[in-house]
């Protein structure tokens, strides 16, 4: 018997004998080391035999696997590993049989064997082959390793080991295939759709099991998965980043991981930190398209996605936007718009939409943050272009809140962008194409919108972080006095305005002034509005002030004071306006250090403190006021008003050219026209509440007359500015204007002739640009005014549909006619 066996043994080929000899009688003993060395030596010296060795080992192994002789299987694997390491350079076929064995071992239901096989595979993956094999397929390995990542084996330790083995296996495949174009394309969606969800699932598991504080084991599935994912993503190129991102997004969808989005954020952080810099925008882009795909979904989901977008944008920084800047903003704005247009009575839904809108706005802010400054302005202009401008006519009448809401949202967006902008030169921050619509917006009907516009102005005007110190709303209002005796208390940072800024304000100042002036007149102003207006005023004088426009500013202040005297705004408004004027004159008085003016101002303030505290900010801006706390009469005694003559003198004494100040209504030629108009309005509507009054067509015609008139006078008021000071044809005041309207023609004609002459002269002498700029500004304001008037009219004739159309026509044509 033995002899026969011996005989057989002798007949066996040498390689078989060598292979057999490495297996001990008892599998517990492990590999027979000496014999293994012999086998390795044999393999390296006779590479042509390697194939056979491989096949024979494979045969033995598959037999052992079927008979579940785990011990022998491990030995075979070990032998294979060693052979592979020693002789890999020589034989492709050997690798084939090696892979087949790994395959076979993986098929075993035995966890131990699966783990073993994965380890062998990883060893194989670490070997650099010099001869590529084109026909090798990793299909099964990808499938199996992915499945292992989801293992639910018991007990937990085994499960974790299997999962980790699966993850390592996946990593091995990636390592093996990714660097070589001739290999299987691992980026194919077929594979990625298995690999990515497996990685994410492992990450997810770890996320839920242990909190972030607990020490991480090196070999927990979560840690390994993260490593593998990073490894994978950093190898992704432009062409195949998509196949990574798609399954990620899908996985997050299916597992409903957008709400809450902690995990999604985590994943995208990993992605962003590992992806090659130049592809960062691809990630953002995919998220955006995903958002598009979810357009119809719950706002909470969308908010989750947008949140993730903003997180990734923060990481990607400059690289986040990619080639299509506007596209990104356009998409976000579109979502904002569609969200705003959702109409629902469901409380929760409304809240969700609101959160979504917030998220979108924040994200836009993050995007904008990464843009160069000039592009930020462009973006603001772009957003501005999206703002529906119909509100002047529509809002009041239709009561449709949608547009207002959209406007509010878009303006908030702009505010967000604006806060990221660092103003250096005013002229850059406010290009005319941006400033014009912005100021037009500042006269919107909705008080909230006006407030936001003012805030935008604040952030753009404010270069030295002063606005916080100028807002009285701050919680610690006890410490901040509204009207400090000494301006130092406010701790303002003041820097002298540059030449360019002075040029800017000279050119655009009137626009600002008239806007502020008109804002004061708005009936539905709230305390916030007034505060914001004060802030704008103060910022203008701090940032752009100085001697050059001081007179203009004082004029404006006086003009504003006159509103409260002459108009019939509610008591609360009047008080607030008086308060603003007081605070403001105090501020500019001290800023420009004109002693006489300061004295006068503080005298008046003291007087008010004693006799009429309601005309000071401490009272007027107090939100806890009730109707009853205000005085019943709006009449303010002259001694409590700032006296123009005194201020005039004070300014003159310091060498200011106050000739223009003498004509109060030229303070701002625009406000003058405004006042003129106001007056005529009052004349016509005997009762004060003209808004509620029935206004018929006759009224509106006379309105237009009065406007034409006031425009004329406003042109004349330009003449002083044009360097013909002192030649002002008449001392235009409230009263005089009133006279103009009511008095007989002769005088009017005469004055008109003079005005015409002045205009002619101006047009003949002044440089073209200057004229154009002035007229542009004017026509803009004029248009505003006009449309406002027409709105009022149309509001009062709600039923009269054609009216709306005519307004549109006027709106379009009047300025053109006037300008050219």
């Amino acid at each position, binding site marked *: 018997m033995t002899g026969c066996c011996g005989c057989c043994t002798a007949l066996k080929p040498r390689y078989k004998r060598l292979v057999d000899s490495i297996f001990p009688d008892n599998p517990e003993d492990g590999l027979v080391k000496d014999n293994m060395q012999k086998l390795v030596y044999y393999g390296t010296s006779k590479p042509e035999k390697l194939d056979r060795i491989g096949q024979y080992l494979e045969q033995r192994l598959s037999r052992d696997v079927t008979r579940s002789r785990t011990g022998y299987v491990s030995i075979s694997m070990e032998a294979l590993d060693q052979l592979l390491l020693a002789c890999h350079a020589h034989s492709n076929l050997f690798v084939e049989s090696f892979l087949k064995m790994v395959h076979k071992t993986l098929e075993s239901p035995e966890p131990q064997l699966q783990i073993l096989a994965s380890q062998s595979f990883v060893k194989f993956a670490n070997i650099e082959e010099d001869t590529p094999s084109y026909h090798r*397929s990793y299909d099964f390995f990808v499938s199996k390793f992915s499945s292992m990542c989801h293992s639910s084996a018991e007990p937990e330790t085994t499960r974790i080991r299997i999962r980790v083995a699966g993850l390592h296996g996946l990593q091995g495949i990636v390592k093996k295939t990714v660097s070589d174009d001739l290999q299987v394309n691992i980026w194919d969606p077929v594979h990625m759709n298995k690999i990515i969800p497996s990685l994410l699932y492992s990450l997810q598991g770890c996320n839920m099991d242990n909190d972030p504080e607990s020490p991480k084991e090196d070999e927990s599935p979560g840690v390994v998965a993260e490593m593998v994912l990073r490894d994978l993503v950093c190898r992704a190129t432009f062409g195949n980043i998509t196949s990574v991102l798609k*399954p990620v997004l899908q996985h997050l969808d299916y597992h409903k991981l957008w709400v809450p989005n902690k995990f999604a954020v985590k994943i995208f952080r990993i992605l962003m930190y590992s992806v090659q810099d130049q592809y960062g925008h691809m990630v953002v882009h995919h998220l955006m398209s995903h958002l598009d795909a979810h357009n119809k979904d719950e706002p909470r989901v969308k908010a989750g996605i947008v949140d993730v977008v903003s997180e990734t944008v923060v990481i990607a920084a400059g690289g986040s936007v990619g080639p299509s800047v506007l596209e990104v903003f356009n998409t976000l704005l579109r979502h904002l718009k569609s969200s705003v247009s959702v109409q629902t009575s469901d409380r929760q839904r409304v809240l969700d939409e609101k959160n979504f809108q917030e998220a979108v706005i924040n994200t836009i802010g993050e995007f904008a943050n990464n843009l160069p400054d000039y592009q930020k302005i462009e973006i603001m202009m772009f957003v501005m272009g999206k703002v529906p401008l119909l509100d002047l006519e529509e809002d009041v009448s239709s009561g449709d809140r949608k547009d207002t809401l959209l406007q509010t949202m878009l303006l908030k967006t702009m505010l967000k962008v604006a806060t990221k902008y660092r103003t250096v030169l005013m002229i850059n921050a406010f290009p005319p194409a941006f400033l014009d619509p912005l100021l037009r917006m500042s006269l919107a009907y909705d008080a909230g919108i006006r407030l936001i516009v003012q805030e935008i102005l604040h952030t753009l005007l404010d270069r030295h972080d002063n606005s916080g110190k100028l807002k009285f709303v701050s919680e610690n209002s006890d410490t901040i006095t509204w009207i400090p005796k000494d301006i130092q208390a406010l701790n303002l940072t003041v820097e002298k305005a540059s030449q360019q800024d002075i040029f800017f304000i000279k050119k655009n100042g009137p626009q600002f002034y008239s806007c502020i002036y008109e804002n004061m007149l708005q009936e539905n102003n709230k305390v916030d509005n007034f505060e914001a207006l004060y802030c704008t005023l103060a910022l203008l004088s701090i940032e752009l002030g100085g001697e050059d426009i001081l007179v203009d500013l004082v004029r404006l202040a006086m003009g504003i004071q006159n509103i409260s005297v002459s108009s019939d705004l509610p008591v609360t408004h009047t008080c607030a306006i008086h308060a603003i004027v007081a605070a403001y004159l105090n501020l500019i008085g001290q800023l420009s250090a004109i002693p006489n003016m300061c004295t006068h101002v503080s005298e008046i303030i003291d007087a008010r403190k004693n006799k009429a505290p309601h005309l000071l900010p401490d009272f007027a801006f107090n939100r806890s006021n009730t109707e009853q706390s205000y005085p019943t009469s709006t009449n303010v005694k002259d001694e409590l008003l700032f006296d123009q003559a005194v201020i005039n003198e004070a300014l003159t004494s310091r060498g200011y050219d106050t000739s223009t100040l003498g004509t109060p209504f030229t303070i701002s030629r625009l406000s003058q026209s405004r006042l003129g108009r106001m007056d005529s309005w009052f004349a016509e509507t005997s009762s004060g509440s003209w808004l509620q009054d029935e206004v018929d067509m006759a009224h509106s015609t006379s309105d237009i007359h009065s406007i034409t008139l006031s425009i004329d006078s406003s042109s004349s008021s330009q003449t002083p500015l044009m360097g013909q000071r002192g030649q002002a044809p008449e001392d235009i005041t409230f009263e005089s204007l009133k006279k103009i309207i009511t008095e007989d023609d002769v005088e009017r004609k005469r004055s008109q002739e003079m005005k015409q002459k002045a205009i002619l002269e101006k047009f003949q002498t002044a440089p073209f640009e200057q004229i154009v700029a002035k007229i542009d500004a004017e026509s803009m304001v004029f248009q505003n005014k006009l449309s406002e008037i027409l709105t009022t009219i149309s509001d009062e004739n709600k039923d009269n549909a054609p009216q709306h159309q005519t307004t549109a026509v006027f709106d379009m044509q009047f300025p053109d006619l006037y300008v050219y």
Partner: protein
Amino acid sequence: MEDYKYLFKVVLIGNAGVGKTCLVRRFTQGLFPPGQGATIGVDFMIKTVEVDGDKVKLQIWDTAGQERFRCITQSYYRSANALILVYDITCQPTFDCLPNWIKEIDTYASSKVLTYLVGNKSDRLLHREIPAEIGEHFAKQHSMRYLETSAKEAENVDRLFTEIAVELTKQAKENFLRPRQDSTSGKVGMPNGGSSPVGGLSCCKLN
């Protein structure tokens, strides 16, 4: 030498809790695990059967029914040679979902994949909600084969997998006889979807 002649991939799909895992375990291990938990992701089993004297290896991928795993399970359809769509005859909703599953198959699986519709839990006759005829009719409409099984009573389970093995072997043989580009390499190509299962059948390996 290889211990099988053909290798086929079979994928089980269907709603959660219809008994996919039980079917597979009954077939591969011959047992019925009471209180089987929900499958996570994808599970893998292997079983070799004999068809006309040839050894046929079935790679069985048992997918999770839960919707959240849809992303990973879908990726397994494509390489399948046969799909087993399972529903629970005692649970109307699992039947109602079938059209959705058909849509999934159309989207993700290869076009000519062999599909079986299986009504499981046929042992619970008292609770039956879907009559066999309706199931059969539905299967016919969508050109699927139909079987009712009981993993618990081992009814029709073996038959199901054997039928699949026989059918796929038949297809493979037909395909093998037809001259094909890759037949020279000795690989058995499946007609469906270019998936390349493979048993090695090369003569050079027959030493």
